[in-house]
């Protein structure tokens, strides 16, 4: 029986028992069911993230070279190699999620090997692999919560489009979207900013040993950046482009100039 079916049966069971115990019973039953749903979401945060970003497992022969690079980097970092997933969505970069250091998944956008050279891809993957630590589970749950919250803004915007307020890029749907973004962005962004801050750039350079490749990867991704998924920037190498000023709350990385300067200095020291 699949997990979602189990939850549905559980909800039905609780609701039916609630009916026997009156209105209060129903309320208690629904509250318990809601708690169970939240628990289910927290437990399966990584699977839900894969679902939200339409990630599919990489089949053999797909993304040649990347599999080997991931294995090599994981071995060097001393962690098990993550499961590989690919998505057709144009994300600002690849990202890693997981339940623990042993159960991790890396999501690679299809466009990544197209816009980057192999050593730049290796730098991006190194930046993902170094994120496998004891905070990964927390980061995954935060990413899912932030994604779900920010997606509501898009949903309302589409709702406005479908109810005749104009095209997706017309002022009225944009204003509806901006209003909802104003409501959801601060809690989502404060969750992201509450995570412990770590210098993954430096760690990636230490793992890969090629600061120039990471600098090039940052520049290349910045010049091919996308305007979407603002809440995902903290998992990726760069922050996505901003569609409105509210999304600036999700800025997590320092500016490219500052990062490149510090990476260049690190390269000179090594």
């Amino acid at each position, binding site marked *: 029986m699949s997990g979602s079916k189990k939850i549905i049966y559980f909800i039905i069971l609780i609701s039916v028992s609630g009916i026997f115990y009156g209105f209060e019973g129903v309320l208690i039953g629904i509250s318990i069911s809601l708690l169970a749903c939240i628990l289910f979401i927290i437990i399966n945060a990584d699977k839900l993230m894969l679902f939200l970003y339409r990630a599919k497992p990489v089949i053999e022969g797909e993304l040649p070279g990347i599999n080997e690079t991931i294995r090599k980097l994981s071995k060097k970092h001393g962690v098990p190699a993550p499961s590989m997933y690919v998505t057709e969505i144009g994300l600002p970069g690849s990202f890693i999620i997981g339940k623990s250091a042993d159960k991790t998944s890396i999501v690679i956008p299809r466009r990544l090997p197209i816009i980057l050279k192999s050593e730049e891809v290796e730098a991006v993957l190194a930046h993902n692999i170094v994120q496998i630590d004891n905070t990964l589970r927390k980061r995954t749950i935060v990413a899912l919560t932030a994604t779900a919250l920010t997606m509501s803004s898009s949903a309302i915007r589409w709702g406005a489009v479908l109810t005749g307020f104009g095209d997706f890029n017309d002022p009225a749907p944009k204003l509806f979207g901006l209003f909802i973004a*104003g*409501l959801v962005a601060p809690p989502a*962004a404060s969750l992201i*900013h509450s995570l412990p801050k770590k210098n993954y750039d430096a760690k990636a350079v230490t793992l890969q040993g090629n600061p120039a490749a990471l600098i090039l990867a940052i520049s290349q991704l910045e010049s091919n950046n996308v305007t979407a998924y603002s809440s995902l920037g903290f998992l990726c190498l760069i922050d996505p482009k901003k569609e409105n000023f509210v999304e600036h*709350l999700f800025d997590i990385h*320092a500016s490219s100039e500052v990062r490149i300067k510090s990476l260049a200095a690190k390269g000179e020291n090594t």
Partner: protein
Amino acid sequence: MIELHLDLKFIMEPWKKALVFSFLSYLAVLLISIVIVTVIKKNIDLKLISIISITYMTALTLSFYCMYKIFKSRFHEKHD
């Protein structure tokens, strides 16, 4: 966006501007709630509206103060 429509220039960091806009959005939610309560009650119940407003504004101010602290520490750290 606001600057474009009102032809104004706010000398503010983007994250502060976003937080101010968000605060205004939450105030709009309070306004909508008051309108709904008034329509349901079919009368302006000042006592109830005051209770709702005070509770809501206290919770809102406290949560925005916490968020402001978090953002300020992070964004200033990033610039240093």
